């Protein structure tokens, strides 16, 4: 055990420990050596394993994703960095038509043990093409597991699970949780075991227990929801905060159980509101908790606009603690306060 600051060192430690064990695990991507994939997810690996195993690629996302497909088909276990999730449009074909489908389409012959690590999220002024979440797109297409850690402990354990998984997994690392220099940090220092361990997929975590309203969130939004819950507590509203941890597989049972208990659900998401994650969570929750819901499910999410650059605009669209508080109040019938 020792204190770790952020999910980036946690993820790189998980990769490091896997590489030490598995000689066929290599890291591929842009700037994975000197820059540690920009946000530190691969920091330190090149120094330890050399350029034979930690490999800078040309700027050719479709091709290095395709390399992973072919390498995985012949005994390798590639870890691929997609620098920002916003670049998925340059390589999505190899991800969803091949990595995601080859096991199924081959009748189970070809496993695709590939872990993709990608940076997500806004809130520091990186504007329309560098601030997105987009995990809903990956979750929509069958065959990809979707990991959205909110703590360093989970980041390490879920990444370890990803690396051991015989299937493609995408680990979404929120920039504001990385702890990386240059980024604002909304996580906290955490005790993280130095030894390898894993956190199972498909198990949501109840981060705070409550009885009046269920708040469901991922990644950075878990932190903000917890802060909102603390404020709500001051007003006598007891909020339960659930960290989804993996969107695929999704732990519907925990969500439904909480919804049945509180009767009210607020979904908090930093992805675009429509046709994404919140809709799916709402469907699952209403399907399982219909008879116990006392109010319609509500959501706070990015309101279907590209991420604007200027600070006041950006601040207006990324869900804030205050917005979460207000929505939760509205949901529980307690009038919203100003601001």
């Amino acid at each position, binding site marked *: 055990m020792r204190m770790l600051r952020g999910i980036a060192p946690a993820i790189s430690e998980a990769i490091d420990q896997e590489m030490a064990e598995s000689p066929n695990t290599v890291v591929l991507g842009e700037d994975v050596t000197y820059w540690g994939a920009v946000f530190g997810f691969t920091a330190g690996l090149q120094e330890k394993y050399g350029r034979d195993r930690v490999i800078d690629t040309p700027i050719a996302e479709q*091709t290095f994703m*395709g390399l992973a497909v*072919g390498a995985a*088909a012949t*005994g390798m276990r590639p870890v691929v960095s997609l620098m920002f999730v916003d670049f998925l449009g340059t390589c999505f*074909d190899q991800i969803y038509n*091949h990595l995601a*489908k080859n096991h199924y389409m081959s*009748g189970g012959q070809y496993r695709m043990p590939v872990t993709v690590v990608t940076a997500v999220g806004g809130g520091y002024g990186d504007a329309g093409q560098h601030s997105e979440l987009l995990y809903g797109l990956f979750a929509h297409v069958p065959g990809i597991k979707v990991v959205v850690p909110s703590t360093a402990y989970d980041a390490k354990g879920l990444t370890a699970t990803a690396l051991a998984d015989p299937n493609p997994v995408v680990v979404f690392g929120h920039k504001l949780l990385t702890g990386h220099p240059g980024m604002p940090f909304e996580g906290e220092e955490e005790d993280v075991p130095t030894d390898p361990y894993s956190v199972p997929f498909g198990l949501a975590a109840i981060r705070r227990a409550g009885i009046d309203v269920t708040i469901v969130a991922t990644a950075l939004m878990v932190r903000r929801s917890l802060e909102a819950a603390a404020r709500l507590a001051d007003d006598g509203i007891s909020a339960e905060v659930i960290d989804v941890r993996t969107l695929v597989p999704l732990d519907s049972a925990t969500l439904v159980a909480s919804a049945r208990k509180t009767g009210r659900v607020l979904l908090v998401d930093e992805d675009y509101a429509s046709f994404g994650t919140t809709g799916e969570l709402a469907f699952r929750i209403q399907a399982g908790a219909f008879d116990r819901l006392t109010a319609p499910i509500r959501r706070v999410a990015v309101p279907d606009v590209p991420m604007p650059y200027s600070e006041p605009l950006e601040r207006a669209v990324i869900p804030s603690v205050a917005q979460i508080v207000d929505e939760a109040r509205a949901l529980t019938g307690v009038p919203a306060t100003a601001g």
Partner: protein
Amino acid sequence: MWRPEPSDTDLPFRIAEAGLDRDALLDAYRRMCLIRVFEEAIRDRYWTGKTDEFNMAVGPIRGEIHLAVGQEAVAVAVCAQLTDDDAVVSTHRAHHHAIAKGVDPARLAAEIFGKVTGLCRGKGGEMHLFSRNKRFFNSGIVGASYPQAAGAAFSFLYQEDRNVAVAFSGEGAANHGTFAETLNIAALWQLPLVIVIEDNLYADSTPKWAAQATNHHYQRAQSHNIPAYLVDGMDIVDVHEAARDAVNRARDGYGPTVVEAVCYRFRGHFEGDPGGYRTREEVELWERLDPISRLARRLQRLEWADDETLTELRRSAAAEAVEAIRFAEQSPLPNPVEALTGVFA
């Protein structure tokens, strides 16, 4: 490009230079015949139930079918250089590559018929053929084969065995960005990769002249310092010579090669292709260059085979193809519940 017959590839020393001899040519002949008969049998079955009104959804074979009739020489010549441990990544037009790579024609046919005995238990279909033990797979996405084969080549280099990866593609695919990206990475990392372009002059209905700035692609390889061959894809000897050099070079650690083989597909892009973008004369011209009858004539001119030998080879190939189709036809369909399993390993 090809030359009028008899060409210099008729000369025994040229054949020897290409790494071939009588036995190898007879073997290639039989394999090409196997592919041809297989394709024709698939075509027949595909049209069963579709002749009155063409409807992809009916008949024993559904969906699209892309036959490789006319392009057998390239597949056979290239795959003759490969072992089971070498990898082949193919495209939507993959039957000939699969058979040439040694994939069991019966399980291939069964997959095309959507049977549970198929390579992929009926889940893949002809654009998604996977054979793990033959290290073979393809994709219906044009341009996807290049990086995937490069990935296999990377893996071979990394694991320090002497295997080679081959990406097959059409000339249309080589206009896709993945071709250039893969050339760059393959040259940079000196991957044991051979890219084979089957230039059949058309991508769907689109002729080369409407899609390519130059008549050929090999210059692109050269611009990355990758050696490249432009060969007569209707002449197994010509392809064989280039393919042998390419595969040897890759196996010996000298990096990637591009082999561009000019050839022709005798059928439509897919069965049911309304055509109209090629003239009858053009098709007939190319039919005269049929790689199978051309090889037969050569074997006869060289007195390496008489009519009887060739007939026997054709007969045995046909028997194998017929048996493959029979196996496919008699196999059961998968149980519907299988649809829901196997997304994740």
